[in-house]
């Protein structure tokens, strides 16, 4: 069965959007529906993710501090009851920050020159995995 995926692609700020657009184009070519969030605060990202009923959030962080934004994002997701929605991050993420945000729950961190193919495959795997988990937990609730 064709895996239907809706992804919200948001970013921290304005400058240097090359990766954002290149990735949006690659994801669309791979059959993933991309909702372009543009520049959004973590709260706005969560609102859009709910309204657009996406499967996964892709967050480009380049200028901002991931260690500040990611905790806000995850707290808001929890408050809005979408804590299980997978989040992937791409951009300029210092190595030390990568460790921290993965501990918070970020599923994958992409860096410059990760190939588009690799990123697309990884996103598909993450969504598939999250659906399996959701199905499992729904089954266990109905049991």
């Amino acid at each position, binding site marked *: 069965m064709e895996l239907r995926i809706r992804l919200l692609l948001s970013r921290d700020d304005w400058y240097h959007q*090359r990766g954002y657009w290149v990735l949006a184009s*690659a994801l669309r070519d791979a059959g993933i529906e991309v909702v372009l969030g543009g520049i959004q605060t973590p709260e706005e990202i969560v609102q859009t993710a709910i309204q657009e009923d996406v499967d996964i959030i892709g967050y480009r962080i380049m200028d901002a501090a991931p260690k500040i934004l990611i905790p806000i994002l995850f707290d808001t997701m929890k408050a809005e009851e979408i804590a299980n929605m997978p989040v992937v991050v791409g951009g300029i993420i210092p190595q030390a920050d990568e460790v921290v945000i993965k501990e918070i729950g970020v599923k994958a961190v992409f860096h410059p020159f990760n190939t588009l193919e690799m990123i697309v495959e990884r996103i598909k795997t993450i969504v598939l995995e999250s659906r399996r988990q959701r199905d499992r937990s729904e089954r266990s609730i109905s049991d």
Partner: protein
Amino acid sequence: MFKDELIHELKEIQERYEQEVRQVLSKIPEAEQEHMTFSGIPVKLLYSPRDLAGIDFLEDISFPGQFPYTRGVFPAGYLTRGLHIRQVTGLGTAEETNARWKFLLSQGANALSVVPDDGSGHRADSDDKRVRGLVGKGGVALDTLYDYETLFDGIDMLKYPVHLITTNAFALACYLAIAETRAIDFKELRGSMSNWMRPEIECLDILEYCARNVPLFNGGYLDMRNVREGGCTVVQEIGFGVAVAMAGCDALIERGLDIDDFLHRITWFVNSGPEFFEEVAKFRAMRKTWARIFRERYGAKDPKSLMCRMHCQTYAPTLTLQQPFNNLIRSTIYAMAAVLGGVQSLHVNSFDEAFAIPTEFSASLSVRTQQIIDLETGITNVIDPLGGAFYVEWLTSKLEAEAIKLIDTVQSKGGGFKAWDWMCSEIRKAAVKNQKEFDNGIKKLVGVNTLVEDHDTQLRALNVLKEYADFDALYEYSSDVADKQIRRLNKVRRERDTEKLDRAKKELRTILAAEQNMIPPLVEAVKCGLTRGEFAQIKSEVYNLPGEGPYVCSPPFVLA
């Protein structure tokens, strides 16, 4: 450039040579006979006088300081006007950036630039929820005139031309307010700002105000460097840049200015990337295209108007986290192309710029790179030393011809401002193509898609340095910066005279609503303690910008 007889005589000899090459190469099946440049221009293995058949020395190349300025805008090249070593600076609070400026000057930098943390469109105050995580991170936090005063503390504004990396009139207002306090005559005040040509009142107000009142300040800017970072080709870098400049000129002429009043105050911000000769040819073609377009199509007469002057920052998308010290080598080669191409001012990316804000250590290496090129290699002693090379001249002409074709396409779509969206989509297409070429290994990047090291020695060396050096070897952002900045901001808010500020705000609103030039009342308002967020808020209200609040910068084309 060459007599017909020579071209004719060469025909047979060259064909014999090419036949020989084909034979040699036929024995090496993997050898590709045709290459593409980084921007996708097919190049041959060899160039000769036969490729320069249509080129006339005096008309197309000529002498430095003479139309069409292919060989440079100054008659004596770098001898009369040395290279400006100008590193992008902007980190933490104004104190930290001021200290970095002073450090860079102590290392021999001779020009300054500052990038505020709102350079990317956020124009909110540092305590606004929309800029969490951004305060003093991608640039320096500058909320009020007080911050600008701290930034310029001990900096001689007449000696060191400062470039403000922002489109925000607020920054210019603070710059002017400081000059006023120091009793500097605006007629002597130099400097420049990244006021990209765009269809926005703010942009045109800055240009108009400077043209009339601060005649040595470069108020207009073609930020094609960041368009290249966005993925465009060198032809687009020239062509879209000129097309956007043309649209800006049309708008200013409509405001009653003469082309020669302001054209010489529009400068270029350009890139210098991996394909060495393509870059050298690009700088040459850019100057030629600029001079020709504005003389032929706009009737500009002042030679200064026709001189395309450039600040260059080396290409960053090919800088890598992998084997990070290789970035020193890359940036040095890119910088050499820029100097051989005759740019006026240069920033060489630091080796850590792919993954961090440069430290004093890495930034000083960037300054040293330029000094070594300038002082040790002899490159700056001869003007346009690659001029006359068959390949360089052919490529210069080729790039100019392609750029003019592109300018005409943009014009047929309504000009640089109206064709904005089309240009963006073209740039994005080029960026996707470029990325795929790296993904497929068609374009090589050492440490990434070729010569990959499993145990990256260079990265390990950097980590050792970070651990044991008695200086900062790798920059790390601390959220203390934001706390400190918010305290400063609140202090200004507490201490300013609110009555005076309210009057200044009211005046600013009136002028904005009447569509008169916003700079004079803005200068008065910043002196009363207006913050950047308040300025943005006033603009949003007056212009009735839909629900955007302080994000008032229009989608800049540079961001492609």
